[in-house]
């Protein structure tokens, strides 16, 4: 949303996180998205989550492709490195960056156009590799920057602003992530900050590729009657399957955990996200059930939100690759170059 940037003013009694930073320190540049854009709510949730987790901004890389959603990294964490890559190819750039430096905290922001059409292949392979990345898809079912074409997530039967009906099947990134062998698949709604912030925190804490599909209505091209990605439709039809809150590390975590009702996700600082099941029979560890649940509700026109699938034991990219614990970028040249004598020995076999 275009607005006049608020000046940063220090005042006594400002809330600070353990790093001594205020929430304003986690903000970014001025948004240039349309007023009311769902993406700006996601930005606000990200700011909140990073601040609450006390993550040093410089440890973070903010990756994106092209599109309205991909502008998001410019609007939060100005102290972090940002990377606005090419259309649909954010995952490969993130893969390379994490290959070079595994300790960076990576958040990738993409859209349904960016990830489910041009970038479907890279999305699939980031999930398959279980790259240690929070992969947010700001999903509005429409191409905003090119003014209103349907995206691959537009539901069949939904209508464009021009009144045209979409007749092709929709790709559901959550179902896709689960089918692809992903380790973390969640959905939320940009208008539900209560649910979104803990899910972002859990995704950041998850060691692997955390896919978080956020229904984020496009106020300009897809917020009308007949749209299934509008504010009105989503508010009316979204159904939380799990809810979450954060337990600070100081608390006795184990005591708060009641088996069968909650799912704890341990964060890097030993705090825990507790997921409370709203549906008694919902088991986010059961892949087949998660897919069946999603499909059943989709058929009823429901948007299911919450943490829908989690496998905490699936090895992430570096574990799978057997890469050294120390980031490759920081490995001394003496450990990389075998030296002249080794070259000499190696060449004995070439004679």
């Amino acid at each position, binding site marked *: 949303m275009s607005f006049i940037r608020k000046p940063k003013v220090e005042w006594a009694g400002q809330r600070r996180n353990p790093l001594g930073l205020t929430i304003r320190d986690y903000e970014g540049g001025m948004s240039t998205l349309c007023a009311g854009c769902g993406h700006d709510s996601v930005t606000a949730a990200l700011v909140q989550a990073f601040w609450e987790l006390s993550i*040093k*901004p*410089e*440890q973070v*890389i903010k990756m994106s492709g092209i599109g309205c959603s991909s502008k998001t*990294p*410019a609007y939060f964490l*100005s*102290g*972090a*490195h*940002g*990377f*606005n*890559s*090419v259309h649909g*190819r954010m*995952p*490969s*750039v*993130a*893969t*390379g*960056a*994490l*290959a*070079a*430096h595994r*300790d*960076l905290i990576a958040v990738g922001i993409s859209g349904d156009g960016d990830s489910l059409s041009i970038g479907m*292949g*890279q999305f*699939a*392979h980031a999930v398959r590799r279980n790259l240690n990345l929070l992969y947010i898809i700001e999903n509005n079912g429409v191409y905003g920057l090119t003014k209103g074409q349907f995206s691959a997530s537009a539901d069949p039967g939904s209508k464009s602003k021009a009144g045209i009906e979409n007749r092709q099947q929709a790709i559901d990134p959550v179902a896709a992530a689960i089918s692809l062998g992903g380790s973390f698949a969640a959905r939320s709604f940009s208008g539900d900050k209560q649910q979104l912030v803990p899910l972002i925190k859990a995704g950041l804490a998850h060691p692997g590729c955390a896919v978080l599909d956020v229904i984020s209505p496009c106020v300009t091209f897809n917020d009308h009657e007949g749209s299934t990605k509008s504010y009105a439709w989503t508010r009316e039809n979204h159904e939380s399957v799990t809810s979450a809150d954060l337990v600070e590390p100081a608390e006795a975590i184990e005591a708060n955990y009641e088996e069968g009702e909650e799912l704890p996700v341990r964060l890097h600082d030993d705090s825990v996200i507790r997921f409370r099941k709203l549906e008694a029979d919902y088991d986010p560890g059961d892949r087949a059930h998660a897919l069946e649940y999603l499909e059943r509700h989709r058929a009823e026109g429901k948007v299911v939100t919450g943490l829908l699938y989690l496998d905490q034991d699936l090895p992430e990219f570096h574990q799978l*690759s*057997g*890469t*050294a*614990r120390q980031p*490759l*970028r920081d*490995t001394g*040249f003496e*450990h*990389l*170059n*075998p*030296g*002249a004598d*080794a*070259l*000499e020995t*190696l*060449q004995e076999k*070439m*004679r």
Partner: protein
Amino acid sequence: MPGADSTPHHINDFVIKIGTVNGTGSASANTLLMKALFRMGIPVTGKNLFPSNIQGLPTWYEIRANHSGYNARTGRVDMMVAMNAQTYQQDLAEVSPGGYLIYDSSWPRDGQLAREDVHLIGIPLADMVNRHFAPARVRILMKNIAYVGALCALMDIDGDVVRGLIEETFAAKKKLIEPNMQAIALGHDYAREHFECPLPVRAEAMNGTNDHILIDGNQAAALGCLYAGATVGAWYPITPSTSLMDAFESLCKRYRTDPDSGEKRYCVIQAEDELAAAGMVVGASWAGARAFTPTSGPGISLMGEFIGFAYYTEIPAVFFDVQRVGPSTGMPTRTQQCDLMATAYCSHGDTRHPVLLPADPRECFELSVAAFDLADQLQTPVFVLSDLDIGMNDWMVPKLTWDDDYRPERGKILSAEELEELEAFHRFDDVDGDGIPYRTLPGSHRKGAYFVRGSGHNRLGGYTEDASEYQEVVDRLLTKWETARGMVPAPVSIDSGHHTDIGIIAYGSSHGAVVEALDQLAGNGIHANYLRLRAFPFSDEVHEFLDNHATVFVVEQNRDGQMRSLLKLETDVDPGKLVSILHYNGLPIPSDAVSKRIRNHIRKEAVA
């Protein structure tokens, strides 16, 4: 059949060509043969002429031995080993007059396709090995070893050397030594008993391979990546570059794996496609690792978007293009120099990239290291333009050497301490006036944070659509290009020692043919100076060479004279004095293709 007297003597100057069926294990026999000649001190090169197929189609291996060290193809075949019945006719036709054809006489070919001017040597290879070896696969393999044995007798190749090589090759699989020795003896003894040995085409120990090795370009380039300190390699399999990453990974397993923990100090990623491979290289380089991808022409096409992105966002990246025949899928297992323009100006918009042009595996090693240094120093994509001939064929080159004092030239990267001192950091500010700004690495310091964007950006790194701010950045990139001109590897010149206004320009794998052609031309009284290009952009030496010669032949292996075009575009040379000598049928350029055409051109000019 003509007598031996009618055959010219070829001692340490011959071409052996072996025709086999792809997938029958002839590669190890051919390597054995070539290594034996090499160990006898005779300069050799070996070229695979193989199909784009795994099994069943005809394949050839061509060994050139030459006491003077010439390594190009000659168009001659002095000794043909015709092991593939399907190509017998073609193979026989290729033998030079007075040459020899060895065939498997287990299936007599009396009267079939005989040539009066060629010596036919029938050896019942299949019969012999079938009597000695039981398992079917062993029979196939040993038939190949048996022809090596026959050649040892016929060409006087040192049997001790061959036996020593077998022992070395199978040191870890000792039970294979004996059958191989037997097969050598079978071929050798049969030839000895039935033919006058040695033939006039023969080997004789000499002293021409000291301090040399046999290596292919992809292996050498992989060594370059290892020694330059590359840690991230991303790729998508494509012929003929695949063996580069295979070699890198195997070298890393050996030298970069922690013996105690098994941890890897490298990360090789087989990407889902070339687009992703390029993205991974860009991401890894941006995050501070030395990263590269090996590919070929079709891969470069797919990577184009990211290459332009890396140019504009000034991210170092190293791309190996092991060229094959184009356009489109072309002939994946044949060689060309056809991606010069595609790499020099790769991507949309105004882009141009440094391209390094190794001529042999030794330079693949050296220029790989140079490519990483240049990419880091210039903060831009750098191409190493090899080809299938260099990459996948066996070359004899002086031993690779390494200076342990080498440290990577990482260019202008601001450390956390430097950032702490700085008042403010601006990503695209030309502080030093050389067109190269300073960069920071993610995770190092909060003050170094900046936003990478392929969209219009200004000097400070901010988004812009302002006309003058945009232009300021792209003009500064041209300043960087001028800086690059003085940093890339200089061309290598060979002066004829005569006063001449004839020049020859070549690059890459055409070099060997040109060196031999220069001597052939000198034999005809034509003296030419030679400049071998090793890089684009063109340095001052290139401009001077063009200025100093009235006629400049540009030798290259593509249809459209891409280097000639590049010289026309990038220098103020009078195009009229650039004469293309082109060869583009997919086979490596032979030396006489160069000398004959230059001679003819000069004659025509003289008549005109």
